[in-house]
């Protein structure tokens, strides 16, 4: 890819975005972090991101709903789901609905970095050598 990978992070726990954003920017990603699902959705309507990282359980809107909207509008976007209570059912459900991967809290910055790197490689592979 000739341009930086565009990433959106959505978690109503503000510290998640605050910690991940600088860590990922150091890797060369362009990152926007949101705590309000509706604001994130409005931004996703305006712009197609390469990778979206979203919490599943949020007060106003479910992360699954965010996933469905992204799949409809921008199917090429890789979506990584995060949750505070991991169940096998939830993991299956998110993967069946088209999520790229699923990460359970608590996680390390390194784990998220590796998963994002995998998503970025998958994007590159899909675009081919010219992408």
């Amino acid at each position, binding site marked *: 890819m000739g341009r930086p990978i565009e990433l959106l992070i959505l978690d109503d726990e503000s510290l998640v975005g605050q910690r991940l954003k*600088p860590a990922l920017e150091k890797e060369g990603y362009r990152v926007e972090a949101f705590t309000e699902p509706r604001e994130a959705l409005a931004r996703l309507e305006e712009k197609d991101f390469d990778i979206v990282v979203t919490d599943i359980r949020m007060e106003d809107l479910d992360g699954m709903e965010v996933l469905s909207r992204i799949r409809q509008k921008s199917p090429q976007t890789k979506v990584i789901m995060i949750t*505070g209570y991991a169940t096998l059912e939830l993991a299956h459900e998110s993967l069946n609905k088209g999520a790229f991967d699923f990460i359970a*809290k608590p996680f390390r910055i390194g784990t998220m970095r590796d998963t994002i790197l995998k998503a970025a490689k998958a994007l590159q592979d899909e675009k081919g050598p010219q992408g």
Partner: protein
Amino acid sequence: MMARSPKTLCPKTPNKSLDLSPEGLVPEIKVSETIVIQSFKNNVISALIPGFIHQINNPINNIILTLDTLMEDNMTLTPEERSQLFQEALGQANRAVDLIKTFDDFYRDTPSPENGQYIEALVDKAIRLLNHELKKQHVKIIKEISGTLPSIGPEKTVLWQVLVNLMLNSIQAMPNGGQIKISLYQLNKELRMDISDNGTGISPVYLKRIFEPYFSTKESKIGLGLPMSLGILKKIGGWLKVKSSEGRGATFSLGIPLEEKIAKI
């Protein structure tokens, strides 16, 4: 939807018993008070465990991410930035401690005196304990307090456990979200509380049997929550009633005396 068949409980201390039945409606069941209260709390706690794990994982995750930042950026952080990150990690650790304390208080027989004396504090504590369930089911809480409410004696803080159970029932009756209105007021020498939801409501057939031990409309539930709530309230001289029409929500109303009128058991 099915009612479970009555089962027999063997009280460990048959001389100390708690009457769970509203007079004239259902057969009397007497079991050990300790077993009843503990089983009641166990039922509520088991329903809250997934939510507790979810809630506690958030501050723990924040601590881990903050410590990762401190380690990864150790060489480039200014002393001020480093101090800020330590403060944030400490704040998240305190948040985890508060969550554990809320659950621990619910599980213990004697609630903490500092937050057990005021009814409004008990309501807030119940909301905190159910925070995850409220969020997950998209249920909003409306609190309506009329006038200045008196403090209640420490023996009446068991009301908190009843309140948690009633709110949990309301949340479970609203699979597609909704609202719970908690109204608190004093009438004569009673503290009154109405807990109204706009959930699925209760059919007249079930409404007649709702305080019956082991009666449940949910396969996954034992059916002791409401009879136990009634038993606990009766023990402190109170009462519990329900009004509902199918599809139009339910209102549980309770009253507890503000003067000493504790039932002897």
